[in-house]
């Protein structure tokens, strides 16, 4: 793979600067030859934002036949740089290695929305597929003119168009010029419309193959320029001294110790120490005396469940069918239980880092690993009161964010913007581990009151799920808020139900109490404990409660948990993934808990199963676990996931995403909990917020259920949802004890078994 930099961009800019002239912009000028935001600002000329309906925005066909494809989406480690290139090369009929993707550089890439919610392939990939099909049709029409052969008699192999002995390559046809679509591209609320029809899947040569990921060799050679590695000429290093409490404001800022090589910058409540050398900034930030106001608006780790129930909330009705109350009252037996999930961290291994260069001419360049460069661009324009056309956001690889850099874009970059503006030099803000653990927007804590009524034969006649959810969509950025810059009110964060109802019962009531952020009511800032999208937000918590509770009902009815589910389901894709997971895992059909279940004596083993539909993808998991009641230790031995994601683009990349979901979620379920006192988060490092270790890694098997005729759906999140309840159910099978409050730490397990 070649570099991500737009070919020609740098040298062209150098040339333009040397010549002092500016190329006139029009759609006819290839994107790579248009001026950058910086050049436009320097010349006082407008900057043309790349248009989604302009074919030239999407691709450049170079004279040698190489193709540059531009996407607003970014690589987060899930392999979408490779999968998107596979889809594009397939539609264009070119070989895979001629296609290079430019991702998330707002000067040149189209705005395709945020890279999140497993949407890259399902939405941006499908869009790219249509545009690439249109590009191919456009190239064929050019070839038809050139070769004097009707399009219907042309064929394309590896970027060469031919008819009998007549042939011309894409490169010869275009040699870098801007392409104009043969049928205009239309994008409306219904989606993207093009004249061309993409290939039928039966003709795929590249899609469906485990093409090696194009980013991996560089990551192994340490040649990937992570945002943390970028150094801009003249750049200063900064560490931000964040407030003592979530709602604390500055009372006073002292001075750095004599001999410090650093400098203090204060803008309202944004306090930072900057220096030429990073270590001087770190030392300075540690030594700087800052007095903050006391603020004690949080309910504490122990107190939040009761506090959340007491906060007045809006109620969202997810499902209301039949008459739950009467059916529950008339049921021959009933079941009630409360489930709880903690506040969690995204836990990026590399803490947030962003670089900003705010220049005197009013133009801005920001380097960021945000999941949404276009969103960050607009956010920066708003906070500086300038137009988006004056801002360029250049995406660079970062530490896996799992939603941390989606709605909130990039806190560190937003702080760097103000520091750079103040200092007139590029500034790099690197958060400390403590900054990240405390100030990242966390995963929300939730509560779930579950009720079910059964008739005499064990059928569920009444089902209620009453959820209390801290927000999962905070979209604030710390920089402008701390600097005291008024931003248009971000949407009021609320907790939302996500995901379809898995089972249809005759009488159902499903409610979400949408709680505001804890502490927001008394904070001087427009947030409390910031909580936002964390891998499969909402559905992760909902599915834990529902699938574990379904197991409780199956146990009450004395039925095998797999058979119990199969009886409730009619969707053939759902049935297929459950059966596939069970078959591969060697599921033992029997009711839980097993006969030998015990909480005394030595290690006991159990099995658990769970199912979900997430963003159109069907996933089922079987977990096998060993439980040692005396120590409270849960060890996952084998985890099997079967998944139907529609069309498979890259099987190995999907399998890797599934194991990523399994391992990361096992960590969340077994170990993770954000703790806080009345003032702030107290789990500020990896020892107070531990992650799963390699010696706790289970053997993971995956089954990809083939379904090539169905459009592809997401693979980054579905398997996350099936792990928590499958673990809870495996422990129940082994011990007869149901764990309903995450995390299932040794202490919690021992307490539950006592």
């Amino acid at each position, binding site marked *: 793979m070649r570099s991500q930099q737009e070919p020609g961009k740098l040298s062209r800019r150098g040339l333009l600067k040397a010549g002092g002239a500016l190329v006139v912009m029009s759609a006819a000028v290839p994107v790579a030859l248009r001026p950058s935001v910086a050049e436009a600002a320097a010349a006082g000329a407008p900057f043309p934002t790349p248009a989604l309906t302009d074919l030239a925005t999407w691709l450049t066909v170079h004279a040698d036949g190489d193709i540059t494809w531009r996407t607003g989406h970014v690589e*987060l480690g899930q392999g979408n740089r490779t999968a998107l290139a596979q889809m594009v090369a397939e539609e264009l009929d070119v070989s895979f290695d001629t296609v290079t993707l430019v991702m998330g550089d707002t000067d040149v890439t189209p705005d395709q929305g945020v890279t999140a919610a497993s949407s890259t392939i399902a939405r941006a990939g499908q869009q790219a597929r249509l545009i690439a099909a249109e590009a191919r049709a456009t190239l064929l029409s050019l070839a038809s003119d050139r070769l004097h052969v009707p399009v219907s008699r042309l064929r394309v192999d590896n970027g060469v168009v031919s008819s009998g002995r007549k042939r011309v390559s894409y490169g010869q046809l275009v040699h870098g010029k801007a392409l104009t679509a043969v049928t205009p591209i239309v994008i409306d609320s219904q989606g993207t419309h093009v004249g061309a029809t993409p290939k039928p899947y039966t003709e795929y040569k590249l899609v469906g193959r485990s093409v090696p990921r194009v980013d991996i060799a560089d990551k192994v050679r340490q040649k990937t320029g992570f945002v943390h590695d970028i150094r801009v000429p003249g750049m200063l290093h900064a560490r931000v001294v964040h407030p003592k409490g979530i709602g604390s404001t500055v009372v006073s800022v002292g001075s750095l110790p004599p001999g410090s090589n650093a400098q203090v910058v204060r803008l309202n409540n944004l306090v930072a120490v900057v220096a030429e050398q990073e270590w001087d900034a770190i030392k300075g930030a540690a030594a700087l005396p800052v007095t903050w106001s006391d603020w004690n608006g949080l309910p504490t780790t122990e107190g939040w469940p009761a506090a959340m129930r007491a906060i007045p909330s809006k109620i969202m009705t997810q499902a209301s069918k039949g008459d739950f109350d009467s059916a529950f009252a008339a049921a021959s037996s009933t079941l009630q239980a409360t489930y709880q999930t903690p506040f969690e961290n995204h836990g990026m291994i590399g803490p947030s880092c962003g670089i900003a260069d705010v220049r005197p001419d009013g133009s801005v360049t920001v380097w960021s690993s945000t999941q949404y460069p276009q969103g960050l661009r607009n956010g920066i324009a708003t906070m500086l009161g300038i137009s988006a056309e004056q801002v360029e956001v250049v995406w660079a690889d970062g530490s896996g964010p799992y939603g941390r850099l989606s709605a909130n874009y990039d806190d560190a970059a937003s702080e760097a913007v103000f520091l750079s503006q103040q200092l007139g030099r590029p500034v790099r803000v690197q958060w400390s581990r403590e900054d990240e653990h405390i100030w990242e927007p966390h995963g929300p804590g939730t509560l779930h009151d579950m009720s079910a009524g059964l008739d005499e034969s064990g059928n569920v006649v009444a089902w209620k799920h009453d959820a209390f959810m801290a927000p999962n969509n905070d979209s604030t950025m710390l920089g402008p808020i701390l600097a005291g810059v008024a931003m248009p009110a971000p949407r009021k964060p609320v907790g939302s139900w996500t995901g379809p109802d898995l089972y249809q019962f005759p009488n159902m009531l499903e409610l979400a109490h949408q709680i505001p952020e804890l502490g927001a009511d008394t904070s001087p800032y427009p947030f409390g404990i910031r909580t936002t999208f964390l891998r499969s937000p909402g559905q992760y918590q909902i599915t834990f409660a529902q699938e574990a509770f379904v197991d409780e009902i199956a146990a009450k009815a004395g039925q095998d948990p797999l058979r119990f589910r199969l009886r409730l389901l009619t969707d053939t894709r759902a049935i297929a993934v459950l059966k596939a997971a069970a078959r591969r895992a060697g599921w033992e059909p029997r009711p839980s808990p097993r006969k030998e279940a015990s909480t005394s004596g030595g290690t006991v083993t159990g099995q658990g199963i769970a199912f979900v539909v997430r963003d159109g993808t069907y996933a089922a998991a079987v977990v096998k676990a060993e439980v040692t009641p005396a120590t409270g230790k849960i060890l996952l031995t084998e985890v099997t996931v079967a998944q139907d994601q529609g069309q498979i683009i890259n099987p190995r990349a999907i399998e890797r995403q599934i*194991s990523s979901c399994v391992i990361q979620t096992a960590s969340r379920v077994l170990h993770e909990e954000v703790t806080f006192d009345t003032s702030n988060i107290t789990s500020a490092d990896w020892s107070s917020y531990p992650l*799963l270790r390699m010696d706790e890694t289970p053997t993971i098997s995956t089954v990809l259920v083939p379904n090539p005729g169905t459009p592809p759906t997401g693979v980054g999140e579905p398997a996350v949802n099936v792990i928590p309840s499958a673990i809870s159910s495996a422990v129940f099978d082994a011990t007869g004890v149901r764990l309903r409050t995450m995390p299932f730490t040794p202490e919690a397990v021992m307490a539950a078994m006592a």
Partner: protein
Amino acid sequence: MAIELVVNGEKTTVTSSPDTPLLYVLRGELGLSGPKFGCGLEQCGACSVLSDAGARRTCVKPVSAFEGQNITTVEGLPALWAKEQDIPEADLHPIQQAWIEEQVPQCGYCQNGMMITTANLLAGNPNPTVDEIKTAFSTSGPSAHLCRCGTYDQIIKAVQRAAELMA
């Protein structure tokens, strides 16, 4: 005050202040971006390098504590392999080769430390069992090596593959 180190086989004199943790000297002064900042608390392993004393975290200990030592980062692994094999040069160390074959990295941020610890493990135990691999990454250092993307199972396979390639 200048401090002498041998970094990736080359004698180097660095001028960062002696209390600077080695990580910032490698990344800042020497421009080696392989070792990563993950915690600054010796709690994650992202900053690991090979030193004369074996795999070491670099985010806390000052550069002065490494004076005179041989320091190898992932960037220096191919040359280290070439030297060990007495061949003119190597494009990749077999550990890197195994990492590519097994397609280990997701985001890749933690992988520097994972490859360094593999080099350290295989130097003392050319044919480790799965349990020995798990121990090396979980309990043998100042902390477990952390990967948030969930690549542990691929790392185990890649360590075994690297052992084969190096045999």
